[in-house]
């Protein structure tokens, strides 16, 4: 038995390493100052897909990402680690999409992919932390879902068995395929790049980022061409895309400035610290 698996991946700004120049003077985010990375939990998702590929030979793992052409970088990264191919879904019409409009566009792309057994994605992306796109896609496709997955144990008899993390424990569920699985950060980390795959896919590109020389190469070696789809390719209804298709609107954004308290400052000095501890004991803050 072989499976067709789609892995949802997102290129995100590395919000975990926000430096001092990450905010512009006007309080907006300086995206240029943040390195773009493969969303961490999407890597956990990719690992689950690659494990299934090992368990069920002939399984095909296709990466799907929505973003500008430079998001092809996450597809290449996935190819280096063992994925088979990928698609970048890119269109100006998708700009300003909230989670719902994003899930609409991605579900339209999934419908174009033919037979799919499983969609696996990270639980959430670190730039938004919403965890909404996976379940919203499942609903749009009319498929069941398993969220907070830690391990996909097997696929057999038309069902997938998944161990998932819930509050204070774990749950193992059996869910019919096709379905959507979102993977938690506590799942196994993704394997590193494979040297052979890196060699093979080093020049992989979407057509729009290829110069003349690269275009000739893509023609000679078709496996290097990363799919590049737009709203028309996936028959998307533009009313449901981007800003127009987003029920949520951002009313305002503030760069939070804390109202500074007058803190009492102490040095790393024995006498000062002992005095301070005595004070805290005396006023019953501790002890």
């Amino acid at each position, binding site marked *: 038995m072989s499976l067709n698996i789609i892995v949802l991946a997102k290129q995100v700004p590395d919000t*975990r390493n*926000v430096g001092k120049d*990450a*905010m512009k003077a006007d309080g907006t*985010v300086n995206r240029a100052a943040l390195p773009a990375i493969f969303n961490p939990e999407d890597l956990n998702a990719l690992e689950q897909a690659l494990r299934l590929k090992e368990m069920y030979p002939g399984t095909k793992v296709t990466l799907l990402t929505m973003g500008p052409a430079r998001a092809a970088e996450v597809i290449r990264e996935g190819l280096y680690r063992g994925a088979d191919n990928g698609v970048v879904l890119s269109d100006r019409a998708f700009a300003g999409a909230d989670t*719902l409009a994003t899930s609409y566009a991605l579900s339209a792309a999934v419908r174009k992919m033919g037979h799919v057994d499983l969609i696996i994605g990270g639980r959430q992306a670190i*730039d938004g*932390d*919403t*965890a*909404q*796109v*996976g*379940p*919203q896609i*499942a*609903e*749009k496709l009319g498929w*069941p*879902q*398993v*969220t*907070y997955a830690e391990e996909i144990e097997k696929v057999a008899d038309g069902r997938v068995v998944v161990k998932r993390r*819930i*509050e*204070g*424990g*774990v*749950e*193992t*569920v*059996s869910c*019919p395929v096709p379905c959507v699985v979102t993977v938690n950060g*506590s799942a196994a980390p993704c394997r590193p790049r494979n040297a052979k795959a890196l060699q093979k896919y080093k020049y992989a590109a979407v057509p729009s980022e290829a110069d003349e020389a690269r275009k000739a190469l893509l023609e000679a070696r078709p496996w290097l061409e990363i799919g590049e789809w737009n709203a028309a390719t996936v028959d998307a209804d533009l009313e449901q895309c981007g800003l127009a298709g987003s*029920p*949520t*609107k951002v*009313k*305002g*954004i*503030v*760069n*939070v400035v*804390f109202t*500074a*308290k007058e*803190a009492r*400052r*102490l*040095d*790393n000095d*024995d006498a000062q*610290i*002992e005095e*301070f501890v*005595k004070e805290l*004991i005396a006023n019953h*803050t*501790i*002890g």
Partner: protein
Amino acid sequence: MADKNNLIVYLEFEDGKVADVSLELLTKGRELADKLGIKLEAVVAGDNLKDVEKQVFPYGVDTLYKVEDKRLYPYTSLPHSSLLINLFKELEPRIAFMGATSIGRDLGPRVSSALHSGLTADCTQLEIGDYTDPKTGKEYKDLLYQIRPAFGGNIVATIVNPDHRPQMATVREGVMKREERDPNHTGTVVNLKAEDYIKDEDYVVEILDRHVEKSKVNLKGSPIIVAGGYGVGSKENFDLLQQLADTLGAEVGASRAAVDAGWVDHDRQIGQTGVTVRPKLYIACGISGQIQHIAGMQDSGIIISINSDPDAPINKIADYVITGKMEEVVPKLIKYYKKNSK
């Protein structure tokens, strides 16, 4: 059921108890419903729902919808989604809240996707206010402001859903205060038939095995918290924090960066994507103070910041700042506490 356009809260129910997060949402829901002059409703689905009304009526619930069916417990996605989707079509609620738990964050997106209504995850504040569409100039009265940190907690965004209903939001446990409205308040119980809302085909996911233990970590209830951030630097240095916590009778907490680094378990994470705490004393060690963390501890009584960077952002909200390496300062705190306490 002619009663439409109210505020509804989805209740989580486990071990005969309505979850804390649901009661917190009812408290906030009652406040906002009063402001809007609408009713507060609640819906619960599961098995053995006998006493739910007794637990929620004191929070000011006007109508409680109960859907009892053995197959609705434990929670699975499709039956609960179908219930809410169909019930919301009928009730057309103006606002709907659910906990930002593994249940609410599984359920909310499906419901919003089916109803094409906006959903904002992990809100830290919910308010009522007006909105003018910057493009069309159209004015909207009394929308729900869904306020949450975004972008890794570096900004705070106010989100509105101008044209679609319900306006949906999830909130983490501990973020909102929980307060009974009136111990003698009673509302109406409406028993709904599961089969009127849920198809048999929705029960497709089978739970093979389930282990749930009450968490041993009690951050929310601890009067003193010793928390460590990325500046702690290693797992070994976290042992120092544990020693300080043991000395003071405190719990150890952590920032997301320290959890991501693998030095502490996720159930100790404090902040927007972890637990929100309000202890009497919060000792922040090597925590720089990203807003995502501050959102989860800023209401602490007294905040002590121990940091080698005198300009760490957290120092701005601290009452006491000790500038120095935490691995030097913490042993001194332990030493002088032991010396001076009786």
